[in-house]
């Protein structure tokens, strides 16, 4: 660590301020990131991480304050200026043209002249050099859309390096990766650090911070509440700083007392529109009073399985029984009547009509219920009263049923969905990614509710890509890979074993 005192920090933020009307998104931010280090930024949703990074990447101009890159003050008006200043960004959602090759994607926007031939040749040489220097192997002629996500992310990193990035910002980079892919990414980040690059890692996963960063800044309500050397801190301490109080990372739950089978799936196969078998001959049961978790890397058929069970997508073959009666072919509306509730994986796309008022979303899927009106008419006042009561009961804030749903935070939006789905006292509850994009306080609330529902005798099927969530909630874990159930295991199974199963490796009896 010698010499740091004389080298100016790669990034220095001095008194950054950003307001959006009454919302103070960034308050007097001071931060130094030393050259050649990996600096983590953690914080709950809405803590101001994204705003701060947007300022650093030129999307917003700070109201006050100064950005210094290598000691020199800069003003970044757009992302081109940020790139010119040596800042590269790897977005959470990749910015790639899928039908293009790796090479075409890397040079996109950086091509010189009207004819491509020369710049392609130049880019190919440069790409080769980058691959060698940083051990970032990708076939330059592969079509990006054909690559697995881990490699697509590598292309994003190459894009930034190709543009001469000295500082790399990664926004939630591991959300879509398997544990082993994430490990690989961390190895790449360490190589980049050795080569003198500076890396900012934005994440909400505390483990990643502990695993890979040198220093970490914790943000809360627009402020940096602490910057610590990673070696001097702990998971619990970081969680506490993030939320501002002590949190339970582990859900407290007693043993399950499973009763009779509520949901039974036999030899279920689903072929999608493209003719791909996305769910391949799956069989399992969920009993009343237990939570069965389905673990797996995103895109291995879990989403389709959940949609078929919820009646949104047709099954190709196999049987599905609810309380002993077949429900294959039943519609989503029909299944609701038979007390099967569904908290979908993507609340923005499916679980909510985001531009609607809150009270309107509180009846989505139940709009035909006699309780909400008479004949063809809706009882608007009654629906609003009902929503207001529900908001009280589930602590949905702000408690205004007429507010547009887009105005609620992720955690509160998820509570709106959850409240609606569990209010009808379902027999079976299908839950997909219940805490994706949800802040820690709401995660605690949602997890507790799910355990309570289990204890009240509901059969719960939980699909999540968050291994921690699966392990802390489930009574049994099924692991899916490439549309098949690779195996069943217990929540106490080691992370290595689970990771192997998620990569498709069948283990012996666990």
């Amino acid at each position: 660590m010698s010499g740091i005192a004389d080298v100016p920090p790669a990034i220095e933020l001095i008194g950054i301020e950003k307001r959006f009307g009454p919302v103070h998104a960034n308050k007097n931010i001071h931060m130094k990131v030393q050259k050649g280090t990996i600096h983590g930024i953690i914080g709950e949703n809405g803590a101001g991480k994204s705003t701060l990074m947007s300022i650093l990447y030129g999307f917003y101009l700070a109201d006050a304050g100064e950005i210094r890159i290598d000691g020199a003050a800069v003003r970044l008006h757009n992302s081109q200026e940020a790139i010119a200043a040596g800042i590269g960004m790897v977005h959470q959602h990749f910015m790639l043209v899928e039908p293009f090759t790796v090479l075409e994607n890397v040079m996109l926007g950086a091509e010189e002249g009207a004819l491509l031939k020369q710049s392609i040749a130049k880019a190919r040489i440069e790409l080769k050099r980058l691959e060698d220097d940083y051990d970032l192997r990708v076939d330059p002629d592969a079509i990006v859309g054909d690559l697995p996500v881990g490699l697509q992310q590598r292309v994003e990193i190459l894009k930034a390096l190709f543009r001469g990035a000295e500082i790399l910002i990664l926004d939630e980079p591991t959300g879509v990766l398997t544990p082993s892919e994430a490990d690989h990414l961390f190895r790449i980040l360490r190589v980049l650090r050795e080569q003198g690059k500076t890396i900012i890692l934005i994440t909400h996963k505390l483990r990643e911070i502990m695993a890979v960063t040198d220093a970490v800044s914790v943000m809360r309500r627009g402020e940096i509440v602490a910057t610590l050397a990673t070696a001097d801190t702990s998971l619990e301490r970081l969680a506490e700083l993030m939320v501002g109080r002590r949190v339970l990372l582990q859900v407290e739950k007693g043993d399950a007392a499973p009763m009779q089978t509520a949901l039974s799936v036999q030899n279920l196969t689903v072929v999608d529109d493209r003719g791909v078998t996305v769910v391949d001959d799956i069989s399992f049961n969920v009993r009343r009073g237990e939570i069965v978790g389905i673990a797996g890397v995103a895109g291995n058929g879990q989403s389709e399985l959940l949609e078929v069970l919820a009646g949104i997508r047709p099954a190709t073959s196999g049987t599905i029984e609810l309380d002993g009666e077949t429900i294959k072919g039943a519609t989503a509306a029909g299944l609701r009547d038979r007390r099967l509730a569904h908290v979908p994986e993507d609340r923005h796309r499916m679980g909510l009509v985001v531009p609607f008022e809150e009270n309107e979303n509180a009846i989505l899927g139940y709009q035909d219920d006699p309780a909400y009106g008479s004949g063809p008419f809706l009882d608007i006042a009654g629906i609003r009263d009902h929503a207001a009561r529900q908001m009280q009961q589930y602590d949905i804030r702000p408690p205004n049923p007429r507010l547009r749903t887009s105005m609620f935070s992720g955690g509160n939006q998820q509570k709106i969905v959850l409240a609606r789905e569990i209010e009808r006292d379902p027999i079976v509850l299908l839950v997909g990614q219940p805490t994706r994009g949800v802040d820690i306080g709401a995660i605690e609330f949602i997890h507790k509710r799910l355990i309570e529902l289990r204890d009240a005798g509901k059969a719960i099927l939980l699909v999540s890509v968050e291994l921690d969530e699966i392990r802390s909630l489930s009574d049994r874990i099924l692991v899916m890979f490439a549309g098949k159930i690779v195996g069943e295991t217990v929540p106490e199974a080691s992370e290595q074993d689970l990771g192997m199963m998620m990569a498709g490796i069948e283990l012996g009896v666990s």
Partner: protein
Amino acid sequence: MPGQLPRWADYVLLPAINVLAAFFVSGLVVLMIGEDPIEAVRILLWGSLGFGEGVGFTLFYATNFIFTGLAVAVAVHCGLFNIGGEGQAYFAGLGVAIACLSMDHLSWWLTFPVALAGAMAFGAFWALIPAYLQARRGSHIVITTIMFNFIASALMVYLLVEVLSPASSMQPESRTFEAGGRLPLARDLLPGLNLGQAPLNLSFLVALVAAVAVYVLIWRTRLGYEIRTVGTSPDAANYAGISSSKLIMITMLISGGLAGLMGINEIMGSQNRLVLEFTAGYGFVGIAVALMGRSHPVGVIFAAILFGMLYQGGAELAFEKPDITRDMIIVIQGLVILFAGALEHMFKPALIRVLAPAKTPLALDPAE
């Protein structure tokens, strides 16, 4: 998703700004051809609102626009862009004419409900095939409804020349209806208003009732809730067990029926015979009316009255100022459509910055 304005700004302020901008540019055009824009506005306002007959004509045109505007608005709530209001209204004229031709020896109030039903049924029928093709085959409703406008046009020429035109006549039009095929005119019922020759008739009240019915449908019924869900988020509709294809069919039938009601105003209320091209582009203007009225029935009524004023006041203006020709009026109407329709979001970002800046970061938060 863009940031959101308070409702009043979205429904009132933004359209008002758009109209003012359109008038400002129109004023520049008037200035360019060497006329006084202030004088032109004065004539336009006086011509449309300044005397009984002017008001009568303004409201008569507005009646057409309310129907076609509501038709577009209902479809918009289901995420459909029904460009076929013109053809649906045109074909609906046939339904009205059949009712009137066969019942005009009776009293008008006996003919009226049959003509209403005929207008709606024929208008809905003309939307049925495009709706089916969209719902079941995914053929884009914009393309199919445009094509159906042409089909309606050709079909009506054939019918008027070969079938409906009386043997003794060379005109491509049906015979004139007897009293039983004519709606009561406001000028006869309310002579005190000095409506002159204005053909304002009972259809205006029908239009207002239709606007209320659309409001109730969209915001107070289960069907309207489902329409809006399909229109806003087809995936959420699917999740909620709502059949998008069924809703597309139902909505387009309602939309076509509303467009069809325009035939009542023109055929039974004013022309009293079926004539070629009686729709005269009102169906297309309905698109601008719906856009400007933010697809809300109240907005549609106000936008329809504005376009009624442009039609009537424009005619007066062309009459008073020979330099400002009929074509100039069309230019002005075009500018209003441009600003209220095509450029409807032009002032929105600025307005959001002024009125609702706090709400932008929430919507832009990439973590969501």
